């Protein structure tokens, strides 16, 4: 099986039983998310159980591209299961992470792992090629995520690393095992606990750290020495050199090139001040790293959001100058294993409450934190410890700040004003506000979580960055939407899908953009595992005419590895199938149309935006002319959003009264068995 290992590891923690699923049985789902949803469908009979219930499973899936030379698609691992972070329903959800875990799992001979049940004592899973052991983790329980990994590395090779490590006399590796682990936050069942791999890769959303904690699973370690068969090795090498040479960063002429999402010229995505000295660091197989390792060891492998956790407070505390507190605070997030979005939005929230005089020492909401130390390492450590160990008010924090606000009796009020910046499903708002960049909010509320899919985000960053720098945005709006619209098959050549003007954001055109986004990400990014930091590529500053490689690149690499003959459109249709399966699962979890709503402030409070976001530009057509328009100052109209939902459901072939998939839609996708199950449960769309 080209690209595949052929087997999926199935671990029942209750009975301590290790068995195998055959990848061939799930091959039609291709990999990653598709396989995870299908396996979940088969193995979890009662889909309405809580995420903490032992009957919940966690799937950890690779794709056929994991561990290969495909650029920006070799390293990601997709984690799924019933989450514990969202509200009011703990949606069946997903999260993925980079590094080298998926690659190592493939080399060990496994396409994925399914975790079932619950162990009676702390355990870790030790995978060395086909040899799999469930081992006692009492000596690991309580350790932070970094110490846990170092301890496991010592276990696997007592002689350290630096030479060849023998798994047996025939099979050796120079690599350290790839470990995925929880920290104290997960051990203490935090809904904001995450899974950490190496220093800075995290499966952040969904609370999978807490779920593993409830299963008493501390870590999974894998080391493999095997091979991944490639259908067309020459073709893969050629494709890699083509993509890299034509589209990727030219060291002699550094420009945004691939991927220019933030419009920056540098590939590393960090929001703190640069280290004195560092290397660019990349996940396995990536053509353009986004992380770093520093000369202090601080901030190793953290990227993007988590690097923004504390830098602002650090600077404010130290007269505008950042210290190492910014880095160390982020490292603490990784070590305790805490979701950086919850930690960041949560801190903003409790800081606001503290300033309002309702939270603090001796206040109605008694909290031990000394806000005079905000910006120092000491404060960050105290705050994160409260969450990790559920100490004092940390017991509320560990529930996620939406549930915390509810416990405090402040939820309704704080969602009305927006001081609690949690806009969808009780989850922290990502930063690309639903009132501004609607495809992000819509995708999130019509699904299960903050989508964290940056596919169209460059439509904000490129023009806005230019405006902030007093430059003219290039290319002009009309040109950019034309380039992108050409690639939005099967809805191609409809630039109105990219019209973010207020008159258009509830239209069927926008519904098509949201649908396209769901389908593309479900397949190409979450099943085939093309990385969100580098794919899709609509616009490339290095190419005359700006056309990126999306449409051509995705199937070219996929087919070179697997030997299949997928077209880009085949992938889109597969994505639509997977998206429908997910909606069926949510339906069985109790989803109803009328719960699909943003938090109150989205409908009433005009979007101001802070800092640079106060100048939020997106392409739009106003008075018949395309331009980059400033979308600050608007909020969503609840009634119009209701109309939009109807348009979206109709477009997707879902029952517009309930949002449930219809029989005809499911059957046309080969999902009759899903329709039958929904019908049995009286939840089939009419």
């Amino acid at each position, binding site marked *: 099986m080209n690209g595949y290992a052929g087997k999926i590891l199935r671990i029942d923690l209750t009975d301590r039983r290790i068995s195998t699923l055959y990848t061939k049985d799930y091959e039609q789902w291709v990999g990653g998310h598709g396989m995870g949803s299908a396996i979940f469908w088969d193995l979890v009979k009662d889909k309405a159980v809580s995420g903490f219930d032992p009957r919940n499973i966690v799937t950890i899936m690779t794709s056929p591209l994991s561990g290969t030379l495909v650029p920006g698609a070799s390293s990601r691992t997709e984690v799924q299961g019933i989450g514990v972070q969202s509200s009011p329903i703990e949606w069946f959800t997903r999260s993925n992470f980079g590094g080298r875990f998926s690659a190592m799992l493939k080399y060990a001979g496994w396409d994925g792992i399914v975790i079932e049940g619950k162990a009676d004592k702390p355990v870790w899973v030790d995978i060395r090629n086909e040899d799999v052991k469930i081992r006692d983790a009492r000596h690991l329980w309580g350790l932070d995520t970094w110490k846990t990994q170092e301890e496991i590395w010592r276990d696997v090779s007592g002689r350290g690393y630096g030479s060849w490590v023998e798994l047996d006399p025939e099979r050796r590796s120079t690599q350290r095992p790839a470990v995925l682990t929880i920290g104290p936050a997960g051990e203490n069942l935090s809904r904001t606990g995450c899974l950490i791999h190496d220093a800075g890769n995290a499966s952040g959303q969904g609370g999978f750290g807490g779920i593993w904690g409830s299963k008493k699973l501390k870590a999974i370690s894998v080391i493999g020495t095997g091979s991944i068969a490639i259908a067309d*090795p*020459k073709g893969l090498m*050629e494709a890699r050199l083509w993509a890299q040479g034509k589209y990727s960063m030219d060291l002699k002429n550094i420009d945004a090139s691939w991927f220019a999402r933030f419009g920056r010229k540098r590939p590393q995505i960090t929001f703190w001040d640069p280290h004195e000295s560092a290397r660019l660091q990349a996940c396995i197989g990536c053509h353009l790293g986004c992380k770093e390792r520093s000369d202090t060891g601080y901030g190793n492998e953290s990227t993007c959001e988590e690097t923004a956790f504390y830098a602002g407070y650090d600077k404010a505390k130290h007269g505008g100058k950042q210290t190492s507190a910014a880095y160390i605070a982020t490292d603490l997030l990784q070590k305790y294993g805490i979701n950086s979005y919850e930690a960041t939005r949560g801190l903003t929230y409790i800081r606001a409450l503290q300033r309002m005089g309702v939270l603090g020492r001796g206040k109605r909401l008694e909290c031990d934190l000394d806000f005079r130390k905000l910006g120092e390492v000491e404060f960050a450590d105290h705050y994160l410890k409260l969450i990790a160990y559920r100490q004092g008010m940390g017991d509320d924090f560990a529930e996620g700040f939406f549930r915390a606000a509810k416990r405090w009796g402040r939820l309704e009020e704080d969602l009305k004003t927006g001081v609690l910046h949690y806009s969808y499903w009780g989850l922290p708002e990502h930063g690309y506000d639903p009132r501004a960049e609607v495809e992000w909010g819509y995708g999130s509320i019509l699904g299960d979580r903050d989508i964290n899919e940056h596919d169209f985000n460059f439509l904000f960053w490129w023009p806005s960055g230019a405006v902030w720098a007093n430059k003219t945005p290039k290319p002009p709006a009309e040109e950019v939407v034309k380039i992108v619209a050409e690639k939005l098959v099967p809805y191609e050549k409809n630039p109105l899908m990219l019209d973010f003007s207020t008159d258009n954001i509830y239209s069927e055109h926008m519904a098509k953009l949201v649908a396209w986004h769901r389908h593309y990400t479900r397949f190409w990014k979450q099943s085939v595992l093309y990385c969100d930091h580098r794919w899709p590529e609509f616009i490339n500053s290095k190419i005359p005419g700006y056309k990126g490689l999306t449409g051509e690149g995705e199937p070219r690499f996929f087919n070179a590895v697997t030997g299949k003959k997928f077209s880009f459109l085949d992938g889109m249709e597969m994505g639509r199938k997977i998206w429908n399966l997910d909606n069926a699962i949510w339906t069985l979890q109790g989803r109803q149309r009328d719960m699909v709503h943003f938090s109150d402030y989205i409908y009433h409070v005009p979007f101001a935006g802070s800092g640079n976001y106060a100048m939020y530009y997106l392409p739009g057509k106003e008075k018949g002319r395309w331009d980059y328009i400033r979308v600050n100052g608007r909020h969503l109209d609840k009634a119009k959003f209701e109309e939009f939902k109807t348009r979206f459901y109709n477009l997707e072939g879902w029952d517009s009264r309930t949002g449930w998939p219809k029989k005809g839609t499911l059957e046309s996708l080969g999902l009759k068995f899903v329709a039958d199950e929904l019908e049995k449960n009286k939840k089939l769309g009419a």
Partner: protein
Amino acid sequence: MSHQENKKEKIDFKRISRRKFLKLTGTVAIGAGVLSEIVWLDDAIAAIPASKGYLLVDTKKCQGCLSCMLACSLVHEGKENLSLSRIQVLQNSFAKFPDDLTMAQCRQCVEPPCVEVCPQKALHVDTKKGNVRTVDVKKCIGCKACIQACPFEPGRALWNPDKKSAMKCDLCSDAPFWIQKGGVKGKQACVEVCPLNAIQFTKKIPEQKGDTGYKVNLRGESWKKLGYPKD
């Protein structure tokens, strides 16, 4: 040896034992370019010509993506396997730059212990391919002497458990799964694929003692544009 004796002796650099050469070094000036012409005589009277190609690496530039390893196993074996890569990159997520990463390329040693030790001359100098030190798989009996003999850690000669033979870097002289011509007169997959140009091919024999010959600075001015020191 006295200076006078040196003058009398005609030194044939085309056939000189290492022992003699070492005695001469320091007493006789060796012209530029001579090193590459030297044909070593070992005690078994086997001549080991120096390789016409070498890989140099910049361990501070490397982003640890292992693309070189993925490309190496891909073009040689037609599959992806880090344990079948003839170049190895090792890293530690928790260590401090630059000690967080090492690159282990074959040095195509001027005095290759792996060649000297092979009982079957399977690991040999391929004079038709620019003197690369490479394994003739048909002759290899799997004794693993070469693997033990490499003085570097991790050893550059590696074991292929599928073929039950040794293998090592051949500068892509024999890379059947690549349309590009490899070898000392062609390209190397690791060099071509490295996204940051952290591996370089050279025809010049690197300094054999220590690492400075093989671990070099390839960063240049553009590296500063990324915000990193180019020193």
